[in-house]
């Protein structure tokens, strides 16, 4: 049996919270200065909510430029936009964690890297075993790394983590696949990529995973997506420990505090009514800058209160349009190969997976999406996706900077205008 202070497994903590009817809430938080990082973790732990801690890494560490991270540390570290876990000596990170992580407070490392081998080794060295990402979701939206290189990197990285499977705290890997580009990617695609990356992790030996989905423009469609993800997880991830994590809206965010809280509360309600166990929150500062520790704590507590006020949902259409679409995409990918990584590569090469507005050279770029009058995110053009072609709108028109901005700011407008009347 674990000693009282032994760090708890990430998956086990979330599952115990679910059994107690509590939504787990989590910030995205990282600071260059170790003392501030420690203060942030302690404040997250002390928040009046079921919380897990986050160490978000800085952008230099994310792209593997540890020399730049070391230069920034030498200059005081304050200009870093996250914690440089590779560039800092392990003993300094152990000091950050000492007395903070424990049996009631697991900590996840968030990074955004398409080649996280160094990051995974560094976090394991200090006894952390929960992290996130994915071969597609940390490659296509964010950088220049070829998808084939990212898949190879993620095979290796997943296996580095999985080498510790079966030991406490049990390694946990979350897919970021439900957040592709943050906005304007139809939910069926988000659910499919999330499921496929989760399957990739399990096939490479990770026993505890979480599947992500990011809040989009329609609460009804979001509930449908979370339920679809749960059903597909049950069908494809049998034997693994899994849960669903919802991300509060990742696109252009309301600029008023009231508008920001309105989106956050909606996300918390979606979790409870559709059955997501964990929520990544966003703060009132989101539209403006990196949030303070206090703003993060307020967001965690706002989300927790909204979740407590929402009755758990039941039912929902198991054969929803989102489920059918995601299922067709997943099956279309897995037909390419028994190896999930190879299947993903071939699917993108054939345009059987295709992300709207993604600039990466390995994305086919034949699909288009739009927000319909009811706020649903839909396909305007399905390109080569294994989905029925959509009836084209009368005049889809050219995408202009003005109408792109208007589409991107749909949620900002909607939630800020409620406030402004």
């Amino acid at each position, binding site marked *: 049996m674990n000693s009282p202070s032994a760090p708890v497994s990430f998956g086990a903590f979330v599952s115990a919270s679910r059994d107690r009817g509590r939504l787990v809430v989590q910030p995205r938080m990282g600071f260059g200065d170790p003392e501030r990082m420690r203060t942030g973790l302690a404040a997250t732990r002390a928040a009046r909510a079921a919380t897990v801690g986050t160490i978000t890494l800085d952008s230099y560490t994310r792209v593997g430029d540890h020399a730049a991270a070391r230069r920034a540390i030498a200059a005081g570290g304050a*200009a870093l936009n996250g914690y440089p876990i590779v560039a800092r000596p392990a003993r300094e990170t152990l000091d950050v964690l000492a007395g903070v992580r424990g049996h009631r407070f697991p900590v996840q490392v968030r990074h955004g890297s398409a080649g996280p081998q160094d990051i995974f080794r560094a976090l394991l060295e200090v006894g952390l075993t929960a992290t996130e990402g994915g071969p597609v979701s940390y490659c296509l*939206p964010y950088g*220049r790394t070829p998808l084939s290189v990212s898949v190879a990197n993620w095979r290796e990285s997943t296996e580095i983590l999985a080498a510790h499977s079966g030991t406490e705290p049990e390694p946990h890997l979350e897919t970021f696949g439900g957040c592709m580009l943050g906005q304007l990617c139809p939910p069926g695609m988000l659910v499919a990529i999330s499921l496929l990356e989760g399957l990739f992790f399990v096939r490479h030996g990770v026993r505890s995973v979480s599947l992500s989905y990011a809040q989009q423009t329609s609460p009804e469609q979001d509930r449908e997506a979370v339920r679809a993800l749960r059903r597909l997880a049950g069908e494809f991830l049998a034997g693994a420990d899994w849960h669903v994590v919802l991300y509060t809206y990742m696109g252009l965010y309301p600029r008023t505090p009231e508008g920001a809280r309105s989106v956050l509360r909606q996300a918390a309600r979606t979790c409870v009514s559709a059955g997501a166990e964990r929520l990544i929150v966003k703060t009132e500062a989101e539209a403006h*800058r990196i949030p303070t520790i206090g703003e993060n704590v307020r967001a965690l507590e706002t989300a927790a209160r909204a979740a407590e006020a929402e009755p758990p949902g039941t039912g929902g259409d198991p054969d929803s349009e989102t489920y059918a679409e995601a299922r067709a995409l997943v099956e279309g990918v897995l037909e390419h190969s028994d190896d999930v990584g190879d299947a993903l590569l071939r699917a993108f090469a054939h345009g059987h997976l295709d992300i709207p507005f993604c*600039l990466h050279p390995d994305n086919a770029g034949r699909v288009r999406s739009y927000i319909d009058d009811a706020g649903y995110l839909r396909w305007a053009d399905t390109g080569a996706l294994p989905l029925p072609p959509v009836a084209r709108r009368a005049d889809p028109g050219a995408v202009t900077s003005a109408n792109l901005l208007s589409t991107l700011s749909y949620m900002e407008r909607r939630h800020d205008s409620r406030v402004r009347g």
Partner: protein
Amino acid sequence: MRSITQSTFPVDSGSVTVLSGTSSDSHTWNLVFLQLLLEEAGHRVVNLGPCVPDRLFVEECRTRTPRLVVVSSVNGHGYGDGLRMIRALRDAPGTGRVPVVIGGKLGVGGTLEDERAEDLLAAGYDAVFADGDTDAFTVYLSGPVVRAAS
């Protein structure tokens, strides 16, 4: 980088405008938006995308002899990354005196302090734009510097 839209705007058939993220910045919506805005102003855009290493940035600016270079960053590292990029470009032979501008959320506090914007100008940028200041950027595009270079 591939085209993201089926643009129907008449674009200049002459020299290109290079649009670039910074080495540490993974954001792309700012680049998608700026590509459209530049195309609407008649520019033929080479969008280098996110996470552009300094060496690639300089090489693309050297080989493509652009009429204008636009750097965009929203991750808070834009000040430091931007300084490094412009110094590398201004030091590189064969890049002439191409106009280079930068904009976005350039500091971890969001808006950049005035003296830091001055540093960027002193290092060789021709203009520094605040986050969301599309009007000022559009005015700049129709102004004498860009027209003289085209």
